[in-house]
């Protein structure tokens, strides 16, 4: 029997970006907040000297312990799902900071098109452009409406960047200037210009200068040391909840953060949540934490699993295509759709140096700027050439046809170690009727609850995008003067991998409860004092979701305060009739 604790104003599940921002905003406003984090406590001190590629990159130091839980996967409803057993197959951030500590720092906003993908597609190309079985949906909020929250996120995070010449309107400049331009980035930008594109520096959470944010937290200047993505920053120079919102929440005196606290269920009755049930992983003891407001802000997969285990909202049914929880799963099939890798015989680059978000980009091929009338897909994608800093364990880039081991592998992997660059094309993953999440009938977690099951395949639409990406990236790489250009092999099907904090959907946002689970405050339609915040709210998995998740969290926090001040009820009334 769970021990019932004293009631608080708000309980927040998770202490990454979504949970950290919400905890900071609500505790600053004077509300008593309890944070429940399944992993360990983390401070900047944990990251000092953490430049160990085996431990952090190859052995996934900062990721979920699958002896407690993982997910299962299959490629269609007839297949029996298998568990994704190792961290190679499935990794998601763990501990205080969550994915916000190990992320690269790439801080793109979503495009204007992303927010209204359904209506803009019909408006520009007609209804017939949308393939059967694609669940293309508007988010119930526009870019212009979310802009002020993007601005808040970037100012808190200190984002370093310069304006995209073809980008959506911004209310203010980036808080810090763009990162340094390396020879490889210059080469990329010149080539992109020659092809007719408008390149600029990737907006970055690896800061170009020391910065104090409006909450009084200081983020240091990036040293381009390369131990960035998959690591916590040695210097506190990355936009990271551990450096920003977590200390802000703690300094308020209103945030009680409990670690090793694994939440199993949201307790609710008659459309109201009353708290959560969690296990103290050190003692095995169960607790009930009552609260006026419950915020579920874990990683996408845990958000969906918690909703299904708690029996909140109607689970998606692929036969009837009705229901919402688990719908529009995306981001499992890799964030890149089209890659051109170039090998240079007479140029050497300093590839050991870099930072997670260091690189060049252009948005000429993204959905706001690309006319797809004569193309066999919807939308478009962002383009990136990044210099993350290549550690030899993880990077052995060799031309196609080279064996994966032995004499020739050794020779070529050493020869090309500093002579290769790659350009990636990254479109959103749109929702499909056959890609979804539900509970696995066979496999259980260590508490005896079912694992989350993912049913995922690669659609022809995605294959078309990958072909397009390969072609366009190769054109730029050719202009860069590469001697050998390899493009990504287009996979037949999903390879049972979930990596890199890329998963999205499952508790999606919209203006119609028939086809969405939450409104544009991340408020659950069916339980109005429950807010589910994260990439789980994205109706289509956008290529870089962090800034958008952050913006959602700022907007949700504002909504929660409104709810607590003005009394209960839905913050947005549902739209009468579905538009899909």
């Amino acid at each position: 029997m769970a021990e019932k604790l004293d009631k608080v104003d708000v309980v927040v599940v998770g202490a990454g970006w979504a949970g950290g921002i919400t905890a900071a905003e609500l505790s600053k406003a004077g509300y008593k907040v309890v944070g429940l984090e399944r992993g360990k406590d983390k401070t900047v001190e944990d990251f000092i000297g953490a430049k160990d590629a085996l431990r952090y990159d190859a052995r996934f130091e900062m990721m979920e312990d699958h002896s407690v839980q993982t997910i299962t996967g299959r490629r269609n409803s007839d297949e029996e799902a298998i568990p994704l057993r190792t961290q190679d197959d499935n990794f998601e951030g763990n501990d205080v900071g969550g994915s916000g500590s190990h992320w690269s720092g790439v801080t793109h906003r979503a495009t204007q098109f992303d927010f209204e993908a359904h209506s803009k597609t019909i408006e520009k190309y007609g209804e017939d452009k949308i393939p059967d079985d694609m669940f293309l949906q508007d988010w119930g909020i526009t870019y212009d409406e979310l802009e002020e929250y993007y601005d808040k996120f970037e100012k808190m995070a200190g984002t370093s960047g310069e304006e995209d010449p073809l980008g959506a309107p911004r209310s203010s400049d980036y808080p810090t200037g763009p990162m340094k331009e390396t020879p490889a980035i210059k080469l990329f930008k010149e080539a992109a210009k020659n092809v007719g594109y408008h390149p600029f520096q990737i907006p970055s959470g690896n800061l170009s200068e020391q910065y104090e944010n409006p909450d009084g937290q200081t983020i240091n200047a990036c040293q381009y040391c390369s131990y960035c993505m998959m690591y916590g920053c040695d210097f506190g120079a990355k936009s990271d909840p551990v450096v920003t919102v977590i200390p802000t929440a703690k300094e308020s005196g209103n945030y009680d953060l409990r670690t090793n606290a694994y939440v199993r269920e949201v307790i609710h009755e008659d459309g109201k949540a009353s708290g959560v049930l969690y296990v103290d992983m050190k003692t095995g003891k169960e607790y009930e934490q009552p609260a006026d407001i419950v915020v579920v802000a874990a990683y996408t997969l845990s958000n969906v699993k918690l909703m299904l285990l708690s029996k909140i909202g109607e689970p998606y049914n692929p036969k009837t295509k009705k229901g919402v929880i688990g719908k529009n799963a995306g981001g499992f099939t890799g964030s890149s759709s089209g890659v051109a890798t170039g090998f240079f015989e007479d140029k050497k680059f300093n590839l050991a140096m870099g930072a997670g978000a260091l690189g060049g980009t252009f948005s000429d091929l993204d959905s706001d700027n690309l006319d797809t009338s004569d193309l066999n897909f919807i939308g478009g994608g962002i383009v990136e050439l990044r210099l993350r800093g290549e550690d030899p364990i993880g990077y052995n880039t060799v031309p196609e046809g080279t064996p994966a081991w032995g004499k020739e592998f050794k020779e070529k992997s050493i020869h090309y170690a500093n002579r290769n660059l790659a350009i990636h094309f990254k479109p959103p993953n749109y929702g499909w009727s056959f890609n979804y999440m539900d509970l696995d009938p066979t496999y259980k977690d260590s508490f005896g609850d079912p694992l989350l099951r993912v049913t995922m395949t690669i659609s022809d639409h995605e294959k078309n995008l990958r072909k397009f990406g390969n072609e366009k990236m190769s054109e730029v790489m050719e202009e860069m003067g590469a001697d050998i250009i390899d493009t990504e092999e287009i996979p037949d099907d999903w390879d049972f991998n979930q990596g890199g904090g890329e998963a999205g959907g499952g508790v999606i946002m919209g203006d119609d409860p028939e086809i969405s689970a939450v409104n544009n405050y991340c408020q659950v339609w069916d339980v109005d004092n429950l807010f589910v915040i994260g990439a789980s709210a994205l109706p289509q998995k956008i290529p870089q979701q962090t800034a958008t998740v952050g913006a959602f969290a700022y907007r949700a926090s504002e909504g929660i305060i409104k709810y607590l001040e003005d009394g209960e009820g839905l913050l947005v009334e549902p739209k009468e009739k579905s538009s899909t």
Partner: protein
Amino acid sequence: MVDNENKTSPNNSNSAQDPSRRKFIKNTGIATGGVVGGALLGGLIGNSYKSDDTSTTKDDTSERQYDESRMFFTRFEDFKVLQQATERIFPEDDNGPGAIKLGVPYFIDKQLAGEFGSNKKDYMKAPSKDIEDVTTYQTLMNRGEVFIEGLRKLNTESQNRHDTKFYDLEEADQDAMLIDLEEGKIKLEAVKSNTFFELLRQMTIEGAYADPLYGGNRNMEGWKMREHPGIRASYIDVIESEDFQKLDPISLKDYQQ
């Protein structure tokens, strides 16, 4: 972007050449009163003292390698197969040492003795199902058990084919057997053969390039072959340089406090 490794770069006197982090401290403004967290400051100061002590580290090759005895493998026979298999995957050549000289077999032995070898952070619950064309780790055997199974099979299969142990075969015959393992033509008990092969391949590369802390990449020779600088505080002063920066590698021993 000229290959400048044989010339002296004009940037050679900057922080990326300097194993200590003193220069870095100046860059970030810590020494000039910039605001940083106390923990960070403590770490940096500690490190700058540390690097003074270690700047004269001697490479004493006559010293005995007390960390090179078997921690996981009980049978020397299994270890001998491992040595030869890793050497075929990452052979000695004109670039430099192969797996054995880099300490890869001992690296793997140590890894298998720890939590990676016992799949501590993996989901190991039954049932074990198989999908024909899927290569994810599905066996309920842990990595240590997979290695024992795989290495012993290489020896028995070698006996059947050539009437000799795997480690006594000619290189070409060893290669042929490893290709058969990779392609699934040599079957293993309760685990797909390419699960074992992929693990063996990946761990060999890890042993060549992981920080020497783990027992491989001996004397940072793996990094030197790749012209990899190892672990350095900062490249802020050289990141924009047109020239390739050839820097002597630094390991965690000289970086952490």
